[in-house]
């Protein structure tokens, strides 16, 4: 009986002393932190993807609280709504950026790009790219091992077994840019989503001369410059045998798509073309 009382007393006193000590230490070494950091962090998505350029959501929240303006601070995942909320907490004007989306700039589908060899090693674009040109003759195109798919935290990318190319689910894509970094060939680009998701893209990054590029892939951009001549808005530049459409200048007239002899230029999310007769109606978008 005595034993129980003594042990209870000893433990109780030790506990009390420790509690007081801990309290004092906690008071002495307290780190003053802006409570707004927690608030800001709460409205951020919490995916810690690093798309904003910071180590995670907490780091972005700290940066937002410290900053005088929200210029250059953007959570690509949450987008404008999230940044507006952050702005409300901090009393700053939120910078609204146009929504972007990951675009795979390769349309070397299986039937257009003949297989020249078979790769039997580790399924990793990184490794394949360091060893070989890939299973086809195109030294610029998609390798098809899916490093980008593995890098995506939001399940927005998947390999299409028919084309052998990655597919972007635009609903899920948050434009965090992980896939852009994961692709050893720099095929994926973050592009402006465009009105109603409509945009014109050169889906090729082959910088070889036309004849060489065409031999490797029927859908390759051969740098002929037809699209450049056709474009009335000077949105297209041809450099190193490769055309590029500037999304800022493009007015979505779709003339380049018609002009492209290889079909490397793709019009995304446009409604199916109507018969020629109703053409004038569709011109609205261009004017």
């Amino acid at each position, binding site marked *: 009986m005595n034993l129980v009382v003594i042990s209870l007393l000893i433990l109780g006193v030790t506990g009390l002393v420790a509690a007081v000590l801990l309290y004092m230490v906690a008071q002495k070494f307290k780190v003053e932190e802006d409570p707004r950091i927690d608030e800001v962090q709460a409205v951020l998505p919490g995916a810690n993807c690093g798309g904003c350029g910071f180590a995670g959501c907490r780091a972005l929240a700290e940066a937002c609280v410290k900053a005088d303006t929200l210029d250059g601070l953007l959570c690509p995942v949450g987008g404008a709504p999230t940044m507006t909320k952050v702005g409300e907490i901090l009393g700053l004007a939120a910078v609204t950026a146009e929504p972007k989306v990951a675009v795979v700039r390769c349309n070397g589908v299986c039937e257009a790009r003949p297989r020249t060899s078979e790769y039997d090693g580790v399924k990793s674009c990184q490794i394949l790219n360091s060893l070989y*040109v*890939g299973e086809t003759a195109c*030294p610029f195109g998609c390798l098809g091992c899916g490093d980008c798919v593995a890098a995506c935290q939001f399940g927005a990318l998947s390999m299409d077994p028919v084309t052998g190319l990655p597919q972007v689910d635009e609903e899920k894509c948050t434009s965090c840019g992980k896939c852009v970094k994961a692709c050893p060939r720099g095929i994926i680009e973050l592009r402006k989503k465009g009105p109603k998701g409509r945009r014109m893209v050169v889906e090729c990054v082959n910088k070889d001369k036309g004849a060489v590029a065409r031999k490797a892939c029927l859908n390759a951009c051969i740098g002929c410059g037809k699209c450049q001549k056709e474009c009335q808005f000077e949105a297209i530049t041809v450099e190193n045998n490769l055309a590029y459409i500037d999304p800022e200048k493009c007015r979505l007239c779709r003339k380049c798509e018609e002009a492209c002899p290889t079909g490397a230029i793709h019009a995304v999310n446009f409604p199916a073309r109507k018969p020629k007769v109703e053409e004038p109606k569709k011109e609205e978008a261009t004017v």
Partner: protein
Amino acid sequence: MTTFKIGGVHPHDNKSYSAHQPITECPLPAKAIIPLIQHIGAPAQAVVEKGQQVKVGELLAKAGGFVSANIVSPVSGTVTKIDSTIDAWGMKMPAIFMDVEGDEWLETIDRTPDIVTECNLEPKEIVDRIAAAGIVGLGGACFPTQVKLLPPPGKKAEVLVVNGVECEPYLTCDHQLMLEHGEEIMIGIKILMRALGINRAVIGIERNKPDAIARMQELAAQVPGVEVKALKLKYPQGGEKQLIDACIGRQVPSGALPIEVGAVVDNVATIFAVYEAVQKNKPLISRVMTVTGKSLSKPGNYLVRFGTPLSDVVALAGGVPEDTGKIIGGGPMMGRAMNNIDMPANKRTSGLLFLPEKESRRQQPENCIRCGKCVSACPMGLEPYLLSKQAELAMWDEMEKHDVMDCIDCGCCLFTCPSHRPLLDYIRMGKGKVGGIIRARQAAAKAAAEAAKK
């Protein structure tokens, strides 16, 4: 009989297909393509122009830096263009294209079969001749030979270690070269010893080549200071650091070069090229390569002029066998599978191996069972299972701490793994990444130091 102390594996040597096949000369091609990158280091700079007539032995491209090598015309004819071509892995490389017309050599080259024994040149002259001839290490790495002969200040060469090991399975070109040109190799060794100012050389030969050991021993008996060491069979004995350990029992520290322990290592084929360059004034324009495989109709050792398409060499060896699943440039351990055979032969091409379909498939990898076989097999004392996992998880800093840069790509870990894990694939990728990080760090430090000076 000695061998190196750490790690190593015993693959079947498979040398019987092409062993003892006399060196056969491959006919000249109609068109030659001469790549400008045939060595480690900076690419060579072309010094000829389109339309220019060149003879065999004329300079085509000069070394593009200290660690670089000259490229000498292996054929005579007209330069048609300087453009890029596709290498055996489908990647682009700059090259000089030539139309071959006849076979006209520079008059200064001694084409007689006589063996010139005497060499009274100064060491500097010898090194200059080697540099002018564009000689690189023909054992595989293609490191410019003249650089090895100029030890950095404060370092002194003591022993020349001659690599006659040919530990890579299937390859027999060095073996055959020792049998047919042993005398010339011995003179080459004397020349290199003179250039380095040393009086000791050790020739390492594995004991699966008893005739080569006997031949070299017979020749070495007449030369003071030269010794032939018969070595136990073990891969990768031909690796520079392993060979030094096996031959003279010295260990090269991590990250250091052989000169740190007073050794200079050269392959027998390189030494033969040195003999030809110094004594006969003949630059490096051809090499012996092994073309082999179980199903090949005429496997053998072929003397190939650089620039000859590999498909010509294959045709000479009986064409691509029907059951071929994989063609490997080099040997099966360190070589790389090729995706075309249109590439021209060059200083790097030591062999062509045709593996049948059923031998060329990789097995399905399974989980690591932590058996540690890869650790005991690694000749550099690394932990491959760990490095490979770190590479998979992109832990570059950790990889650097675990000495990934010491990896020699020998493939012992992959060969020995009972779970067929692609260890080397990951380690090699990680090594590339870590190497890039280290170079970037050094460049940044250099820039910072220069900025501080100003």
